[in-house]
């Protein structure tokens, strides 16, 4: 935010960066080989739906678009904070297809003027023991962070840091740990 908009009190939510999403397929391979976690084929997009008819119309458009592209039905849900989640599914092997879907959702919302309302995207990973990991993409930062919930409202920080180490240069990982905010019960985990 520029100095002028601060002085005049005109801040608006920043626009999202979408391009970094396309780094996900490589990162998925790294996570699979280094950590033994495989993509679950589930991804989700979280945004704050603005009140009024325009958002509803846009979300309907998004769903129609994905279904026309051969994706299974999109599941829509609203969490306890009032944020809308769109849950996308693909064959677990088809990571790049999932990423393309994620990008399509985001791009559609952005084109309709709701880009600043995008909160995060999430891609789910799991291993055979049932350990779950979400790679969370923060649009406003253009960075990713790992989120590994275990049990009730506890997260495995050691494991998350290990994932960060494994990802190395494959993904831009959020350097500020205070921004790795938890997403308890997020669809797609």
């Amino acid at each position, binding site marked *: 935010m520029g100095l002028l908009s601060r002085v005049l*009190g*005109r801040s608006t939510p920043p626009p999202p960066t979408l391009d970094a999403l396309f780094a996900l397929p490589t990162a998925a391979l790294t996570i699979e080989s280094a950590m033994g976690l495989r993509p679950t084929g589930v991804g989700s997009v979280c945004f704050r739906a603005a009140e009024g008819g325009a958002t509803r119309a846009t979300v309907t458009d998004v769903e129609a678009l994905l279904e026309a592209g051969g994706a299974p039905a999109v599941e829509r849900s609203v969490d*306890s904070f009032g944020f809308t989640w769109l849950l996308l599914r693909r064959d677990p092997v088809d990571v790049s297809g999932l990423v393309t879907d994620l990008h399509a959702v985001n791009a559609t919302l952005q084109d309709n003027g709701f880009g600043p309302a995008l909160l995060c995207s999430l891609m789910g990973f799991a291993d055979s023991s049932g350990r779950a990991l979400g790679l969370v993409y923060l649009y406003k930062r253009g960075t990713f962070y790992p989120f590994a919930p275990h049990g009730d409202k506890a997260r495995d920080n050691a494991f998350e840091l290990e994932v960060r180490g494994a990802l190395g240069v494959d993904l831009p990982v959020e350097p500020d740990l205070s921004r790795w905010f938890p997403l308890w019960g997020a669809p797609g985990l």
Partner: protein
Amino acid sequence: MASTRYLPDRGLSARMALTMFLLGLLYVVLVVVIVIAIDSLALALVVAAGALFAQWFFSDRIALYAMHGRVVTPEEAPQLHGIVDRLCALADMPKPTVAIADSDVPNAFATGRTPKRAVVCATTGLMNRLDERELEGVLAHELSHVAHRDVTVMTVASVVGVLAGFMTRIVLYSGMGRGRRDSNGPPIVLVVILVSAVVYALSFLLTRALSRYRELSADRSGAFLTGQPSALASALTKISGDMASIPSRDLREAEPYNAFFFAPAAAPGFSLSSIFSTHPPLERRLEQLGAISAQLGRPTT
């Protein structure tokens, strides 16, 4: 380029800029008077400026202390932290310290000299009265104050008033009779007192006006951030029934400055109290939020 629904209100910006300009002008007038009048006041002025600086520098701790705010961890207040987490991720700002004040008065405040050192505090009364969406709207409003650096802006704006008030008093109590006399003009001390009193009065009105514009801006940015202007509007109606319109200044004092009222943040139904209040009237805020709601709901293309 993607279309945007987040348009600035140019009228509001212009009025705010004009207010700031007039405050700056006052500051210049005051400095000129100080330079003409004084040698012994220099120290006193440094003290006043120092106090103001400390108030700005420690604003987070002072406000928390004054409101008996208690910093809470995510475990103690998961809901409040969850809301702040998400708003900060949406707005791409660092997460401020989150605090709760045990008070039944529904209120919230945000303070701190930079976004990194900010504190957001809600009272228990606020959390009890509002539902989750309304609470989120209020917190988004407070986070907008942080993003706009309103503590800094208002501190800078109040410099003029504090200096002028301080000067009037110093000259009144200690400076009497020490003024250099012009052979055929009035004593310089009198002129200084007069000018500082007028400057003080003007700067008081201007800072209040500025404060109202900052509130409207924070409403606006907060509503854009959550996309839910109506939730904030509903929170405002719930809160203001309990705490608005308790006047803090004697009405009689207000009379002489009536004429300086130039750019109402208030709606046309103008009352004296509206130029002395730090917050715009409820109707004005609701009206703005209604307009934003229409703007967000407008069909695309």
